[in-house]
C-alpha cells in the first residue's frame, strides 16, 4: 500500500509534482502513466525518500519509507537500471545490497535465477546491456521479498521476450497480494499489464481509474456503415442526438448510435448493409487526448498545429 497525500516537489521555480494524492492498493498492478516529464520518476523518488517532498507526505505500508527498519522487505524498487557501480559484478552488487538486511547468499542466487542472469552474474555490471541492467535492477528489487514492488519504466530496453517475462512477473506478484506500482509513458504497455491506472501530466493527477473505466471512456467512438442504399439509410438514422458524416460514396460515419441499433433499424426497413463496424478510439488516442494539455515537451510540429 502506497498513500500519497498532497505530495509536491519543486525544483527551483519548476513544480515537478503538484499536490498529488493517490493510493496504490495491494493485489493489483497499478500503472503510473504520464508523458515524459510528468513527474512520475520524481514521485517514485519521493516514495523511496531519495528526494524530500517540498510539501505533503507519502507513506508506504503505513509509515514513511525512512521510518521502516526493514525497508527492503517493504519496498523493492527499480528506479533506474544504472544505479549500479559499473566495476562490480552483478552478484557482488546484489550481495552488498542484501547484506544491509542480513539477507544471505541463497536469496541472492535465487533472484539471479529468477531474472535469468545466472550466466553473467560474475561479469562486471558496467558491460551489461540496458536489458540486462533492467534485469539486475529487478533482481535487486526482489531481494527482500517485498510487500510493495515499484518499477520505473521496467520494459525500457527489454526485448519482446523480456517484455513478456516482465508482464507475467508483475501479474504474478500482484496475484500474490503484493502492491505493484509500475510507471510507463506508453498506454499500450499499461493496457497489457495494469488493472488500475494513475495518470499524471505536468505533475498533476489527471485520472485515478480502473483500466476498464478508462477503456469505457475511450470507446465513445463512431460506427462505420457501408450500404448500397446509403441515402435512404441516412434519412432513416437521422435524429437529434445523431451525427452522420459521409466521406466516400456509400459509406456513413455514424456517431450517437450503437451498432446493434443501426443494424436493427436497417433490417426493419429492409435496407441492405455491407459493413457495420464500431471504430473505437484506441487507448493510446484516449491517453493522448487526456494528457494533451499536460504534455511538457510537445513536438514542434504538434505545437505549431495547435
Amino acid at each position, binding site marked *: 500500500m502506497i498513500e500519497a497525500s498532497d505530495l509536491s516537489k519543486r525544483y527551483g521555480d519548476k513544480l515537478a509534482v503538484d499536490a498529488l494524492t493517490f493510493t496504490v492498493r495491494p493485489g493489483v498492478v497499478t500503472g503510473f502513466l504520464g508523458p515524459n516529464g510528468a513527474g512520475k520518476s520524481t514521485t517514485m523518488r519521493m516514495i523511496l525518500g531519495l528526494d524530500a517532498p517540498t510539501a505533503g507526505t507519502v507513506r508506504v505500508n503505513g509509515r514513511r519509507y525512512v521510518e521502516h527498519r526493514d525497508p527492503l522487505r517493504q519496498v523493492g524498487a527499480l528506479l533506474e537500471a544504472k544505479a549500479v557501480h559499473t566495476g562490480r559484478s552483478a552478484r557482488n552488487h546484489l550481495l552488498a545490497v542484501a*547484506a544491509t538486511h542480513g*539477507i544471505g547468499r541463497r536469496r541472492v542466487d535465487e533472484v539471479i535465477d529468477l531474472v535469468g542472469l545466472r550466466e553473467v552474474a560474475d561479469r562486471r555490471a558496467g558491460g551489461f546491456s540496458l536489458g540486462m541492467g533492467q534485469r539486475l535492477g529487478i533482481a535487486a528489487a526482489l531481494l527482500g521479498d517485498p510487500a510493495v514492488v515499484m518499477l520505473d519504466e521496467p520494459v525500457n530496453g527489454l526485448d519482446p521476450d523480456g517484455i513478456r517475462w516482465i508482464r507475467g512477473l508483475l501479474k504474478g506478484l500482484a496475484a500474490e497480494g503484493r502492491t505493484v506500482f509500475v510507471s510507463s509513458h506508453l498506454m499500450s504497455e499499461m493496457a497489457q499489464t495494469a488493472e488500475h491506472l494513475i495518470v499524471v501530466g505536468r505533475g498533476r493527477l489527471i485520472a485515478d481509474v480502473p483500466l476498464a473505466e478508462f477503456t469505457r471512456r475511450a470507446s465513445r467512438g463512431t460506427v462505420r456503415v457501408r450500404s448500397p442504399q446509403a441515402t435512404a439509410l441516412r434519412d432513416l438514422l437521422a435524429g437529434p442526438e445523431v451525427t452522420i458524416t459521409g466521406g466516400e460514396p456509400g459509406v456513413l460515419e455514424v456517431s450517437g448510435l450503437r451498432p446493434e441499433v443501426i443494424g436493427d433499424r436497417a433490417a426493419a426497413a429492409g435496407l441492405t448493409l455491407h459493413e457495420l463496424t464500431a471504430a473505437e478510439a484506441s487507448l493510446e488516442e484516449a491517453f493522448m487526448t487526456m494528457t494533451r494539455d499536460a504534455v511538457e515537451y510537445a513536438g514542434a510540429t504538434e505545437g505549431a498545429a495547435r
Partner: protein
Amino acid sequence: MTSAAPPATTVAADARITGLRVVRAEWIKFRSLRSTLIMLAATVVVFAALGLGFSAFLADATIEPGTPAPPGGPSSLDPLGASLGGANLAQLLIGTLGVLLTAGEYSTGMIRTSLAAVPARWPVLAAKAVVLAGVSLAVLTPAALLTFLGGQAILGDQGISLADAGVPRAVLGTAVYLAAVGVLGAALGALLRTTAGALTSVVALLLVVPGVVSLLPESWSERISPYLPSQAGQALMSVGGGGDLLAPGAGAAVLAAWLLVLLGAALFLLRRRDA
C-alpha cells in the same frame, strides 16, 4: 529464459538493518571493486619502495650534510624520516582510494541503490569510514613496521632502533595518518559528490594549502601551519618535533578534529540533500 514463477521465499523474518550489517555490506563493496584493491596495494607498494629507497639514499656515505632530499622525499633526512618518507606520496594514493569509495558511488549512480537500501543514510557513510579506516590500519600498520625495520637494516650502523623513545609511536602514527587521509578523502568525496572535484580538494588540502601558508608572513604561517592536516600528521610521524610541529598528542587531536568536521559536514549534507 526464465519462467515468471513467483520468487520462492528464503528471506529470514529478522531481515532488517543493523549497524553491523551495513558495515558488512560496505566491506563487500570494498573488496569487490578492483579499483579500490589496486589503490590500496599501490599505497603499500609506493610507501614501502620509497621508504627503502630514501633509506638507501641516506645510507650512501657520500651524502653531504644539507643535501636536499630526493623529490617527494621526507622533510628531514634522518633515519626515521627516510624510512617512513614514502608517506608523502602514499597519502595521495590512499586519499584517492577514499574519494573513489564515496564519489565513485555518485558518478555511477550506485548511491541511489545504497540510500534506498539504508534510507537513514548516515550509516552508509559511517560504515564506509569504518571499513576504510579498519582495512587501512590492518594493512598499513604492518607495512609501516616492516618498512621501518627494512630501512634501518639498510642504514645499518646509522639506523635507529624500534625501542628508541617515540619510535613505535611514530611508526604507528604513520599508519594512523595514512588511514586518516583515506577517511578524509572519503568525506570530501561525499561532500563534493564528484571524483574530480574531491581529488582536487585532497591534493589542495594536503599539498597546495601548506605551500601557500608557508608563503604568508612568518608570524601568520607559524600560527596556521601546525593545524593543517598534513602538519598535524607530521607531528604524529616524527620524533623530537622540530620547526612549528605540535606535540604528537596535540597533532593527533588536530587530525581527529579535521576528520570530525569534514565527516560531520558530509553526514549533515547527506541527510539534507536529495540523492
